[in-house]
């Protein structure tokens, strides 16, 4: 990911990140910093809501928060400047100083070139001094829409026993956000800091007596569906896929796992999924051509191996956050990371970097799934590895027919970046690694 250049002026801008190829705009759900706060690389500074949920977004550069440009509750396009920072020790921002600064957000996805003005745009285009710039206001919520709520908001509401139908949201289209729920939990504390209009000064919204027939969450699911649709449509439109498959004997790997798990507490048990992920991550070290991106008409293999894990969400939807440096994690670490990732994908708390950093995706159908999956590559990645269910099959070996637990591994890869021969060798490497599970 691009290094953060502090720039001569020491000022930087924090922009609405692209948390995936399918993201056009995002909503600032909460600011976790305020002007004057010191931040350092990797600090979570805001919660951003997209069609895929609410994410904790980190900042790439340290410094002092100068100004929050976009108010919480406002929905703005990817690339919009959300906040300005100055370097530690620097005076507060001067006119035009920030305009030369590079984008500060961690890992802008190579997928989505930011539609906003490039950071190098002449300062003259930037109107007024940053300090005088009016904060972009939160949109007025249309009344009467009470069913929309972010997944995180729903979870908190459920935990605190708050009835979402009695609330008005400050998010996009009146969506109820985490902050709204937290405010409601603190009632009767006044809603002093809410940027959205006070409910009391509006005419009482006609609360529908009969609830809409659609159950809660339907709109969130529809938004998720829309996001998935955008990503896969782009993939199939732009990426010339080729597909390969290989059946892999998992006898040795499962035997090793059984032995391992016998001596482990239930909380430390390892699933086959972790073993499969590790084999992919290690195999990628020798096949970096499948690890990385196709952007701006060129292949950009990545050195770091961040494996995106396709996770289906209860109630519908799909998300593929990354496990960073998966090849460098032990099986135990990888299992814990996987377990943590699935938990957060379903209940909130994913980081923005986890949504942008994946260099490849693995789709594991699990033991209740179909025999194989030929995946749709998540742009701008160049490959997707699929695993079907693990089941016993007749297995011919050394002139003998036996029964082995086996899995069908598949590769969907971008033919612009690699060829079938290369992909075949990659699947063979995964097979080879899985025959010696103790060295994974």
């Amino acid at each position: 990911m691009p290094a953060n250049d502090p720039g001569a002026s020491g000022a930087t801008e924090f922009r609405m990140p692209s948390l995936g190829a399918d993201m056009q705009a995002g909503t600032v759900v909460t600011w976790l910093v305020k002007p004057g706060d010191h931040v350092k690389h990797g600090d979570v500074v805001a919660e951003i809501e997209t069609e895929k949920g609410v994410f904790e977004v980190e900042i790439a550069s340290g410094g002092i928060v100068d100004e929050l440009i976009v108010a919480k509750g406002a929905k703005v396009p990817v690339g919009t400047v959300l906040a300005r920072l100055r370097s530690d020790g620097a005076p507060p921002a001067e006119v035009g100083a920030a305009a030369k600064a590079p984008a500060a957000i961690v890992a802008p996805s190579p997928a989505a070139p930011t539609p906003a003005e490039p950071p190098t745009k002449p300062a003259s285009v930037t109107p007024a001094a940053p300090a005088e710039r009016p904060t972009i206001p939160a949109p007025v919520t249309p009344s009467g829409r009470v069913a929309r709520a972010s997944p995180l908001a729903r979870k908190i509401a459920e935990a605190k026993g708050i009835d979402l139908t009695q609330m008005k949201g400050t998010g996009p289209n009146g969506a109820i956000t985490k902050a709204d729920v937290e405010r409601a939990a603190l009632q009767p504390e006044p809603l002093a800091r809410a940027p959205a209009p006070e409910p009391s000064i509006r005419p009482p919204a006609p609360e529908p007596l009969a609830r809409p027939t659609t159950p809660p969450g339907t709109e969130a699911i529809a938004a998720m569906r829309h996001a998935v649709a955008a990503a896969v449509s782009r993939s199939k439109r732009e990426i010339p896929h080729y597909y390969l498959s290989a059946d892999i004997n998992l006898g040795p790997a499962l035997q090793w796992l059984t032995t391992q798990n016998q001596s482990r507490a239930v909380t430390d048990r390892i699933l086959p999924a972790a073993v499969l992920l590790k084999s992919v991550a290690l195999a990628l070290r020798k096949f970096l051509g499948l690890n990385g991106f196709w952007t701006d008409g060129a292949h950009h293999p990545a050195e770091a191996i961040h494996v995106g894990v396709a996770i289906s969400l209860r109630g519908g939807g799909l998300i593929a956050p990354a496990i960073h440096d998966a090849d460098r994690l032990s099986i135990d670490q990888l299992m814990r990371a996987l377990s943590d990732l699935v938990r957060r994908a379903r209940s909130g708390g994913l980081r923005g970097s986890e949504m942008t950093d994946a260099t490849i995706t693995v789709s594991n159908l699990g033991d209740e799934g179909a025999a194989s999956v030929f995946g749709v590559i998540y742009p701008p990645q160049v490959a997707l590895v699929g695993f079907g269910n693990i089941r016993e099959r007749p297995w011919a070996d050394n002139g003998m027919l036996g029964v082995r637990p086996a899995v069908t591994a598949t590769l969907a890869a971008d033919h612009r970046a690699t060829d079938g021969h290369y992909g075949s060798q990659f699947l063979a490497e995964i097979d080879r690694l899985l025959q010696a599970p103790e060295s994974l």
Partner: protein
Amino acid sequence: MTTDDIRTAVLAALRRVAPEIDPVSLRTEVPIRDQVDLDSMDFLNFMVELHEAFGIDIPESAYKDVSTLDGCIAYVVANSPQAAKVKPGDR
């Protein structure tokens, strides 16, 4: 602890993994995974929940014994220190 208490606690554990289940319509003698969409991670989390609720460590070799709700309850009765006070007459 009565078997009804155990049943309630097992269902609560399952519900923490799969919040959408309807305990009333769940058939106790049919494998849970035939009725509820649980992947292997969910099932492991269910085992962890039972571990936390009852202080039992269900080995993988016993997974077949806890595939149904009835099986879970019987396993807890037989193995949990918390459930040790269950008497045959308790219902």
